[in-house]
């Protein structure tokens, strides 16, 4: 790989051991994909809580304040977990505080969300950013046309430290054309909720071989933002798709030809009702009807989603616990709007945590004996990780069915008729 003079100095260790290790990792990753050089990033996004502390310390060793902006992924909130009575919360405090201390010393921004675009922080079309979090990678790539490559949490820390990322994959305009095309058969889309789009995206991710960009056709044009987001974010859960052109909705896909660049795709795959019925069923991993916990906000909730939850909870009391993953500013807006009071009086809670992989109510290493044995969610991504990482039973269904389950403490959701 060709390095600039400054990059050579970083590599030689002149700017400290952390930056040296970080650039070494970026070079080795870039080499394995034949990247010719590194590119400066507009900003970086890291996850300090998910990063093993030993690795975090290696990469930040001797690093001073960065000139470029760096933001953060959903964090742990062990002090709040403790307030909520989760018995193992104390185990998480010290490491969290130590890493947060470094994060603040570096001058990085505590956005603590996987949906930063809801805070007005998002890359413009063509801009290069590096980030942790496959769901924000696919959202920024697809919905805003930014140039974001698929990247892990450790590598994204290295990129944030150095302010650079290997010039490879989806950063290169020639690699951004769709190589697979999904044709969605005509259905009654007017009845579709976010859960329906999640289900479609999760199915698409599973059937696409590899990580090359895709185009999705057959859906109504100019999809509502929350629907388009629900469609793309579950793709890198069941698979590795990190750029999905939704024809008629996303900026690089006014039509199919623009999305494919006129190049014949490797695969053309039809998706119809039978595939969606099977996928919806597969997301439900349960054999009884009790619901201990309901998880919303994977990815972090929009104000409309919170408004819909609140509209069903006026004067109600929840039988199950309910966690809404939301950023601090969106939670503040929900409270300003009166939604927060309704939800909290019913027993629901807000927190800027990941409500799937790191859901404190569903994790045995946080909740201990209080761990939920069964969870309901309207997110395919959450359904997948609650079952696999947290090991709970899972009900997947619409937002309405999930709110009802929280009120009644049992699942009465039905499979959609499509």
């Amino acid at each position, binding site marked *: 790989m060709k390095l600039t003079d400054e990059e050579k100095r970083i590599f030689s260790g002149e700017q400290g051991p952390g930056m040296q290790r970080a650039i070494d990792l970026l070079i*080795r990753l870039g080499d394995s994909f034949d990247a010719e050089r590194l590119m400066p990033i507009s900003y970086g996004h890291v996850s300090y809580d*998910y990063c093993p502390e030993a690795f975090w310390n290696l990469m930040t060793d001797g690093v001073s304040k960065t000139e470029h902006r760096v933001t953060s992924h959903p964090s742990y909130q062990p002090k709040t977990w403790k307030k909520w009575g989760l018995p193992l919360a104390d185990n998480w405090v010290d490491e969290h505080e130590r890493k947060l201390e470094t994060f603040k010393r570096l001058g990085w921004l505590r956005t603590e969300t996987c949906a930063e675009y809801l805070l007005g922080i998002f890359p413009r079309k063509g801009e290069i950013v590096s980030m*942790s*979090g*496959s769901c924000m990678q696919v959202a920024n790539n697809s919905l805003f046309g930014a140039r974001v490559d698929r*990247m892990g*949490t450790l590598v994204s820390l290295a990129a944030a430290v150095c302010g650079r990322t290997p010039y490879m994959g989806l950063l290169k305009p020639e690699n951004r054309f769709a190589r697979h095309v999904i044709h969605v058969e005509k259905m009654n889309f007017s009845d579709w909720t976010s859960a329906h789009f999640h289900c479609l995206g999760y199915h698409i991710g599973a059937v696409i071989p590899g990580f090359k960009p895709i185009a999705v056709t057959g859906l109504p044009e100019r999809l509502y933002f929350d629907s388009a987001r629900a469609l793309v974010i579950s793709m890198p*859960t069941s698979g590795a798709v990190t750029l999905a052109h939704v024809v008629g909705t996303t900026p690089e896909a006014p039509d199919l030809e623009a999305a494919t660049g006129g190049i014949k795709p490797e695969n053309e795959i039809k998706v119809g009702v039978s595939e969606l019925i099977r996928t919806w069923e597969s997301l439900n991993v349960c054999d009884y009807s009790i619901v201990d916990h309901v998880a919303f906000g994977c990815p972090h909730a929009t104000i409309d989603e919170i408004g819909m939850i609140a509209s069903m909870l006026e004067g109600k009391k929840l039988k199950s616990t309910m966690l809404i993953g939301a950023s601090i500013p969106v939670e503040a807006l929900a409270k300003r709007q009166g939604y927060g009071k309704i939800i909290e009086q019913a027993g629901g809670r807000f927190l800027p945590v990941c409500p799937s*992989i790191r859901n404190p109510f569903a994790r045995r290493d946080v909740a201990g004996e209080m761990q939920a044995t069964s969870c309901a969610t309207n997110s395919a991504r959450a359904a997948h990780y609650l079952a696999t*990482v947290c090991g709970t039973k899972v009900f997947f269904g619409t937002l309405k069915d999930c709110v009802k389950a929280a009120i009644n403490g049992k699942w009465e959701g039905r499979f959609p008729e499509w």
Partner: protein
Amino acid sequence: MVINAHTISRGEAEGEAVLYKGPFSFMGDLDPFTGKVTVPRHELEGLSLAGKIFIFTTGKGSSSGDCAAWVAKKKGNAPAAIICLESEPVLSGAVIAAGIPAMDRPEADIFEMIKTGDFIKINATEGTISIAMHKEV
């Protein structure tokens, strides 16, 4: 017999092959504290990948896959090496950062030539896969 492949992460390893004709993520598919596959209804559910040469199609899933790989490696529960048909950046970053030898783009149909239980040796620095012994049937 030797099969050539493309280097992702350098190093040498040997062990029993485990094949899975699908994508894999270190986050959610593998419990880093036991080395076992955790996905409900997965054909490898409950099987330990620790110390195995794990062969699959490609990477997938959460960007925290590299954190899980790092923890699995530190706890001694990671595969000894991995081989896949074509890697993607989360998987490649994971094995490079964690120091797990890895290769992709093998120059022969490894799903045809290698079976689960075969004892194989790999040199990911040189980019070679050798089948030391086929499992006795």
